[in-house]
């Protein structure tokens, strides 16, 4: 136990002096790095605009209120499209993520040396790139529309579902797998009776969780042309129709809250 002695009196310390000094030095480095980054980041910032920000915010808020409620009747179809992007995208993502997860899990992969790293690389690439960027790419390849949004959501979901699912597969109880294979079951039967029942609740939970996130993400995909309510948001922003923007924000907020509630309920029921 680190103790500091002043004459005869011993005083308890949490850490020894050297460790404490090293800690302070680390903090100093972090502060220096922060200041440096702040300087680099803001060398082109026009502070005149920033000083003006509160007035701008008040101005925008004034224009946003009250929301144009009559615009709602034109939002139902985009809202349905948004739900479709999220749900169909999640389903497609699940279909693609399932084999990837089984190939990536250490205990089910056919080859740890070759196939597992490829599957892991696929999961990491899918996870690192936001669905909005996937949408940007797919809109320029497939043209604007729902299809680009659905595929973008699916591509982003592979990494998320794949990662959580392969971790769940690696954490299963091996004794059940052993018991099933001891009856003379083939590899597919082991998968069916030994592994799937163990990961099915986790899988359902992960899927619903991702669906909830996808609803959130699909609301903005329209900004790059991939359909849904984001497209209306982009139109309203471009025409500076702030009362419509505020109504769209309210609709998005309601949808997100509702989907979060549904997802929490379903996950609670499963687990």
């Amino acid at each position: 136990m680190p103790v500091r002695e002043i004459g005869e009196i011993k005083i308890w310390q949490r850490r020894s002096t050297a460790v404490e000094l090293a800690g302070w030095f680390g903090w100093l480095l972090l502060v220096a790095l922060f200041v440096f980054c702040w300087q680099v980041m803001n060398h082109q910032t026009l502070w005149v605009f920033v000083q003006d920000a509160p007035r701008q915010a008040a101005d925008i808020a004034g224009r946003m209120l009250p929301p144009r409620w009559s615009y709602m009747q034109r939002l139902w179809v985009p809202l349905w499209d948004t739900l479709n992007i999220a749900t169909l995208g999640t389903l497609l993502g699940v279909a693609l993520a399932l084999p990837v997860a089984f190939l990536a899990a250490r205990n089910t992969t056919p080859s740890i040396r070759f196939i597992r790293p490829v599957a892991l690389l696929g999961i990491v690439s899918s996870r690192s790139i936001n669905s909005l960027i996937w949408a940007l790419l797919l809109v320029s390849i497939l043209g604007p529309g729902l299809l680009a949004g659905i595929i973008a959501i699916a591509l982003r979901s592979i990494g998320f579902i794949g990662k959580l699912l392969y971790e769940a597969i690696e954490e299963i109880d091996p004794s059940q797998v052993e018991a099933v294979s001891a009856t003379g079951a083939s590899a597919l039967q082991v998968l069916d009776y030994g592994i799937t029942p163990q990961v099915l609740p986790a899988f359902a939970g992960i899927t619903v969780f991702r669906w909830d996130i996808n609803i959130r993400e699909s609301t903005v995909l329209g900004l790059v042309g991939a359909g849904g309510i984001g497209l209306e948001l982009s139109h309203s922003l471009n025409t500076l129709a702030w009362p419509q923007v505020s109504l769209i924000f309210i609709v998005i907020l309601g949808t997100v809250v509702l989907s979060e509630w549904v997802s929490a309920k379903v996950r609670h029921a499963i687990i």
Partner: protein
Amino acid sequence: MNPRLSGTAAASGYPQRWRRPPFISRPWLRYGLPCGAVLYLILGIGSVEVNWLRAWEGLPRGFAFVAGFLAPDFLSRGADIRAGILESLTMTLTSTVVGILISVPIGVGAARNLAPPAIYGLCRAIIALSRSFQEVIIAILFVAMVGFGPLAGFLTLAFATIGFLSKLLAEDIEEIEEAQAEAIRATGAGWLQLVNYAVQPQVMPRLIGLSLYRLDINFRESAVIGIVGAGGIGATLNTAIDRYEFDSAAAILIIIIAIVLVAEYSSGAIRKWVQ
């Protein structure tokens, strides 16, 4: 199976074969769910209009993108890419640091076992506000307020960090081991001493882990919010894709993936060292 055993089982009317129990135990839900799913799929897929001609025309561009991934072009837009990545990295670091500094007091305030009800409600409201909107939407508003550039991105990411970190920190504080807090309280410690000696040591490893995770998320998000003008590599990426320069776009994506990979591995190492 033992024939005699199955014989007696058949005689007493028990089922002879084992059947696996269904995943969903309530029958109406078990059969209703697939029916509803099929109905939805018909409706949903029916409402997706696809312009197959346009998709067919885009096919060469798809191949160009795949080819770009195999032969990425780091050089011809090198200066823009370097500036964009630098902006993204600086935005990520500053916003994460500021976000953590703000979210620690809010997280403590949103923990039911430490804060009085009024402060608890206020902090939970701030968290809900920050969590309910996509980063991109917040970025649009901040760009409208402070103008184009990384400062808007910094504000966006810091704001989003608050909701994420405060919520998880508050949940963690609510789950601390009460015995340690009681022991500190029994020595006559005040509220600040309680937080410092009983709560902070218990939540610190997780707070560090969450902060590193958020650093990673903020970098990934910083690549996106540039699309709406909030600085960072997103603007460069957007321009590259708009000009159909798929080799430059692929180079940017590869850099993003590489940085995320490095961040993930080093944060794993740091977390192991902390615990």
